[in-house]
């Protein structure tokens, strides 16, 4: 009856969002008076999986099949369904990532479960019924959603709950086989192409984001954004028109029709703050706006602001960060 947590790994490490998912699952397990078991997908190492004890995980199921390194929808779904069956799990928690949504939606049908994506808080549990708070209307609202099915699948939005670290606790890593066959890998990728990320920080996983809009005037000025991002250890992002004209790649476009980010710090440079842009960023904890127009709508959604020219302000900020040491 344990709560099953799906942890995504990359290059041997458990992704930060999956540490949050593990903590979420462990807290749900505690509320239900049971334990939390994790099942690992992606490129994992036993040593790193054992450390999930710090997030409150008791046991980790690890299938050493090398083809699980890359995302394969069919195989991942079967692996997690098999783990859920072995553990007799009524609750499955995963990340609200492209992988989580792809697998979670298939599992919901296969296991006849109620599925909630985009979840931002721990559930309220009354009897067998879960109520979860989820983002809706692209960041413009929240909905308390009732999961009435006997089984529940919860996809947790990144940076919504804090990962716990109980130093010294370890989880027991157990070999697990879902008896995957070639047919389960039929939709395996032919090729995986990773982006060159500034400073190696991925936008969906980033704690801090420096973002530029049309006010940056052209791609030749992006070094100003990148220098501040590097100094802060932040990822870079942009508004939609900027990626539409190919100043920046599409995967950096945030907003209602791009990706939604919820970092601790979002710095908007030369972005007006259109409602569609705000939708993708307004769950950031702290928003800083730099714009030369004091009437720019973004200031209404900001915590800190500088009315000024990005070309003068950005180098000063980068310098100040470097001086902090």
């Amino acid at each position, binding site marked *: 009856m344990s709560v099953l947590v799906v942890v995504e790994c990359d290059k041997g490490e458990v992704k930060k969002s999956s540490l949050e998912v593990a903590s979420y699952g462990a807290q749900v397990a505690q509320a239900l008076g049971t334990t939390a078991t994790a099942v690992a997908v992606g490129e994992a190492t036993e040593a790193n999986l054992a450390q999930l004890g710090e997030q409150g995980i008791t046991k980790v199921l690890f299938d050493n099949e090398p083809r699980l390194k890359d995302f394969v929808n069919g195989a991942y779904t079967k692996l997690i369904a098999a783990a859920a069956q072995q553990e007799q799990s009524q609750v499955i928690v995963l990340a609200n990532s492209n992988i989580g949504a792809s697998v979670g939606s*298939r599992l919901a049908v296969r296991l006849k479960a109620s599925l909630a994506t985009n979840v931002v808080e721990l559930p309220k549990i009354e009897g067998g019924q879960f109520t979860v708070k989820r983002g809706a209307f692209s960041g413009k609202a929240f909905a308390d959603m009732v999961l009435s099915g006997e089984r529940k699948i919860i996809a947790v939005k990144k940076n919504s709950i804090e990962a716990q670290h109980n130093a010294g606790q370890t989880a027991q890593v157990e070999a697990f086989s879902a008896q995957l066959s070639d047919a389960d890998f039929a939709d395996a990728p032919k090729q995986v192409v990773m982006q060159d990320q500034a400073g190696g920080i991925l936008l969906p996983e980033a704690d801090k984001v420096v973002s530029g809009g049309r006010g940056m005037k052209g791609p030749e000025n992006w070094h100003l954004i990148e220098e501040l991002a590097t100094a802060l250890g932040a990822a870079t992002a942009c508004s939609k028109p900027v990626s539409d004209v190919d100043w920046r790649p599409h995967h950096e476009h945030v907003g209602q029709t791009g990706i939604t980010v919820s970092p601790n710090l979002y710095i908007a440079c030369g972005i007006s703050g259109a409602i569609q842009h705000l939708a993708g960023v307004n769950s950031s904890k702290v928003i800083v706006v730099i714009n030369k127009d004091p009437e720019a709508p973004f200031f209404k959604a900001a915590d800190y602001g500088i009315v000024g020219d990005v070309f003068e302000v950005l180098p000063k900020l980068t310098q100040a960060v470097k001086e902090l040491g």
Partner: protein
Amino acid sequence: MKFLVCISNVPDTTTKITFTPDNKEFNKAGVQFVINPWDEYALTRAIELKEAQGSGSVTVLNVGEADTEPNIRKALAIGADDAIRVNAAPKDAWFVAQQIAHYAKEGGYDVILMGKESIDYNGFQVHGMVGELLGIPTVAPAMKLDMSGNTATLEREIEGGKEIVEVNTPFVASCQQPMCEPRIPNMRGIMTARTKPLKVVEAVGEGAATSVAEYALPPKKQGVKLIPAENAGELIKLLRNEAKVI
């Protein structure tokens, strides 16, 4: 090849979201509804692929009540050949997925395209549910889709990169930019759309698996603290000492 494109009817992206006084329902009063922006990529790409193949058809499907018909007609004006409306309020993703799977199977479609997610309920889950119900692969979210015979080559976005995936028909893909340049209706399209077939059918399957107890708006910001541009460096100190985010 037969394409089925699923379109969702959503509030325009500029809509200020409000709820009914009991916070139990979205307040539709005065709201302009549009085709979900992501579904426009699916629709345009289906039309482009049909044109490239020189034969076949593009059908749009919506699960919704009669008030969604203007947007269904718009999809026909953009270039779909015919439409199906499943006459029911879309209660949740599971309910919607059952309708799509049922009518997709009945019509024998080769390619089922949808948008990445609906911009109102942001489920990002109908694709996988339909794929699982039909026992066929799903590729979500797809940034590129090319067809050669019965084989599709797709670029699937993953965090930090992309996968190149090949699948055979039938399959489901959920689409997003930069797959194509979404088309807008032209005058001829608008004229012909009026006479294209729009079939209204009844809902099948089970009810919803989820429901909303209450909606809420995000907490308001306290107000912005302005730092003079000359002292820009001061901001960094505030971010460290006051906001504690760096």
